[in-house]
């Protein structure tokens, strides 16, 4: 069963036809539940734009995105936000932690915003696995890049979302840390049967994925076939 279904998605910037940027030019894509997809492509090819559309962070010029049976852009801003905090976990290249909240508060923020109950055991498990026990009361500003990225991952996992969207999660990390963070992410998602869509420039990281989708000039140039085989690695 596909968890993610994208149909004829277009995103154009600018009204003047001569100068419009076709960031996404008619993209259709399906991702199965539990799948780990890597998106690669040159800079400016439209990867981030696509990811934003998948998470409902921005509205497309045309087309449909369905996540877990919910058509994103048919929802109001309010509904979309609620859906996002319950079902989508984000990891951004620049961490994007809330600076005025402690590490623990950052991690539990989506749950608390939802008024939900915090599953302490699960949370402890995530924090433990990401090695953040000693840092939970610190403010994000006092953490290193790698630590911040791990907090961002913990936050993405906290609500047990069905899908995790990551934009160059290791872009600012050295290769050793990158590897560690990636392995963690993968382990956690496997454990909870989560779907991962990840943008990366790093070929070796892309190789860890079940499928690699290549985008150029807002179009998918390869990888638009769901693999039937089992996961590699």
């Amino acid at each position, binding site marked *: 069963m596909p968890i993610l279904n994208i149909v004829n998605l277009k995103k154009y910037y600018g009204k003047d036809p001569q100068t419009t940027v076709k960031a996404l030019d008619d993209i259709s894509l399906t991702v199965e539940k539990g799948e780990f997809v890597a998106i690669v492509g040159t800079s400016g090819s439209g990867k981030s734009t696509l990811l934003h559309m998948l998470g409902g962070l921005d509205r497309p010029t045309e087309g449909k995105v369905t996540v877990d049976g919910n058509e994103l852009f048919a929802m109001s*801003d*309010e509904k979309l936000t609620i859906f996002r905090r319950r079902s989508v976990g984000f990891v951004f290249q620049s961490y994007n932690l809330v600076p*005025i*909240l402690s590490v623990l508060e950052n991690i539990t923020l989506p749950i608390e*915003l939802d*008024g939900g109950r915090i599953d302490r055991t699960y949370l402890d498990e995530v924090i433990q696995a990401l090695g953040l026990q000693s840092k939970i009361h610190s403010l994000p500003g006092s953490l290193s890049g790698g630590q911040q990225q791990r907090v961002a991952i913990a936050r993405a996992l906290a609500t047990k979302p069905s899908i995790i969207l990551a934009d160059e999660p290791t872009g600012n990390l050295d290769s050793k840390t990158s590897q560690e963070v990636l392995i963690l992410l993968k382990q956690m998602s496997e454990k909870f049967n989560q779907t991962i869509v990840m943008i990366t420039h790093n070929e070796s990281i892309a190789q860890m994925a079940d499928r690699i989708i290549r985008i150029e000039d807002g179009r998918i140039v390869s990888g638009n076939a769901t693999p039937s085989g089992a996961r590699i690695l």
Partner: protein
Amino acid sequence: MIANNNRKIVTRLSLRSLRVSPLRNLAVISAVVLTTLLITSIFTMSLNLNKSMELTMMKSVGTDFHGSFKRVSPEQIEILQQHPSVKEYGVMLHAGLLRNEVFRDSPVEVKRIDEASARHSFIHLIEGGLPEAGNEVVLSTWVLDKFGIQHALGERVQLDIDITERVLKQEFVVSGYYEADKNLAIAGLAFVSDAWVQQNISGIDPAESEASGSYVNTQEMSVMFKNAVDIEKKLDKVLADTGVNRPTGVNWAYTTSSLSDNLIEFVPYVAVIFIIMLSGYLLIYNIFYISVVRDVKFYGLLKAIGTTPRQLKRMIRIQSQILYLIGLPFGLAAGYVIGRLLTPMMNTFSSEPMEAAYSASPWIFIGAALFAYLTVWLAAGKPGRMAARIAPVEAVRYTGVQTTRRRNKRSKRGGRLHVMAFTNLFRSKKKLSLMLTSLSLSIVLFSIIFTVIGSLDVNKYLSTFLSGDMVIRNEKIETHEGERPGDPYKLSEAFSSDLERIDGVKSVEKVYYYYDIHDMDEKIRAVLQPLSETEPPQPYLTSLLERNSVYLQLYGIDPGWYDLVQKDVIEGHFDPQKFASGDYVLVAQSLMWEEDTYTSYYHPGDIMEFKNLGKSYEVMAVMNYDALYAATTQSFSTYGFNAFFPSSELTGELPAETNPPWPLSATLHIDPDKLDSATQAAKSLAASSDELVVKSREDYREELDGFIGVFQIIGYGLSFVIALIGVLNYINTVVTGVIMRRNEFALLESIGMTKRQLKKMLVYEGIYNVLLTTAITSTLGVFLTYSIAKSIAGNTAFTVFRMSWLPFVLVVPVLAIIAYTVTLSSYRMLSKATLIERLRQGE
């Protein structure tokens, strides 16, 4: 449950946001304190003023009871007092009038009262208690003084009490006395005991004395209801419910002084409160607006993570509420104190002397808190909605050089900074025109107010009240209504010769006054008859026509006034020599029913007969309805008019049985070298009488200074607010513009524009803004100021239009400084990072 849970995290986020923006908080709190302070002081002042007005009126009525039932029997009192709506009551019995020689001119009523009546009639005994024995009496200090006896209990006094059928002469013992209140209308009262009433007048039939008009042994029952709403209806209902049928009286102090009846008096207050709220709104709104624009990434990130628009709105709302709660107590307390301190000053602008009364009504605080809250609520609303609408991509979008496309477009224009700055101005035409309009408008409004204040003219004001150096007026004459103690002859010939003898007094110019009920002649009827036939009918005019008379005020003026006549003449010519002969009269126009309409029944050359003067006069000239204002009583009767004669015509032989004219005022012309000593001497001469009011030129000047002071406070306050609005709008436009163009500036830098050049470009933009604004204000603005200020000054008394150029000149450097400062600080903001970035870099 869910709502309750997530409320906690929103509150926590709000509190943390507050903690990291101390400067913004301080600004908002100051705005809240300012708003609350101003509103509270306005509320305090208006409630105090209302209370002062009420107190003054109640004192002139003589009681604060809501209403009364007249001439009721003891049995009826028994029935009426049981009615559930009657909360409290007092009974006053009319016993008679004092006939002692000292009270020949000021009647003193003898009454029997109970404790409740005393309490509600402002009778506060200094010593003693209400009379009990038949020979006990309570008097006021004024009455005691008249008798020339000490303020002490046990003093003996001979009272001649007129009970109509005869005058009872009896010696009384003072069992209590109270301070005579000069604001109280009825100063002359004597209170006797019930025992005295039983002994002496209980045999008199109230019905008979009512019929004869003496009212001896009649009782009046005054009542207090739960509140003063619809007193007349309540009185009628009591009568209907109890079946008693007696005349009633409503304490008109409650009806005329109530807020609703005097709504017009409160319009300025409403306007001022609106302005305060508007300025508070703009301040707070701008601070929040800029902070949201600044922290766009922060709100975008929160939204990306799952903070819903409603939660974001609540975050801003909570922050504003907390800041409001912090500022509120300070604003309320300071506002109350200031309002209280300003009240006596406000009272001096009332036309009647007023005693300051203070209100500590909780409504002042509740009202001010509510209005301030409304201000904050509205001000935080739009920034909240803006934060809610922020697209979550804002937070995650990579900021930096984005396209090469724009680069080409820019480079075509070349690196000429001022050209770039100029084109930048017109990028958002809507924003630019909004900013220019708001700035120009505030400058124009400021100039108008400045010009009007500058046009106030002290001499014009003085001349309307005073023609010489000082005036002594007989105020009692000017209050026709009611029986008031007083001697209308106080300004006697003997007194004025005393005045003339003062060293330095060059002349004493007197005005005599005669209230004339004048038979209507053909000429008056010719004007009034057609008016009475129009719809809707005017009861007052109909009654005048039925009575066939109008009310005139005749004035006899001394030659010193002649110089002032010609400027008020609107028809004919004033010839002082001919006028002094005594065959001529000057008539003023009549005040008509409709506002601002005046008509003259007569024209120069007409012959008028004055029955009460026993003579006919030729009309020499027609004057403004308020001609020689300083000489008159300054009151006017509708359809009546003022007429002026030489004073000899009023002081000479008048037909028998007509009332003698009253000396109304004496105006002193004093040698400038001896002004001070002569003023002092005249004042001390006049001080021997409590009915003469002495005012010197200096006194009037002080009055006007006070008036101008208030006018300036309100006027400059208003223009300050308006200027604030303009400047805030400007700051807002510039700062948000810079924040929003942050990426573009980064791009410009990356293609080689130095920070210095960037700063220069921004300064150019500021200069162009100032130039555009100046261009607008120096053309259209000057025109508007000139025409509007001129028409305002033309319609206001005491003003002589004088165009002020200062605001237009002053505005250029002020604007330039503001523009420069704002540009520099927004440029500095650029180099600082946003909230998110600042904190991420580790504090």
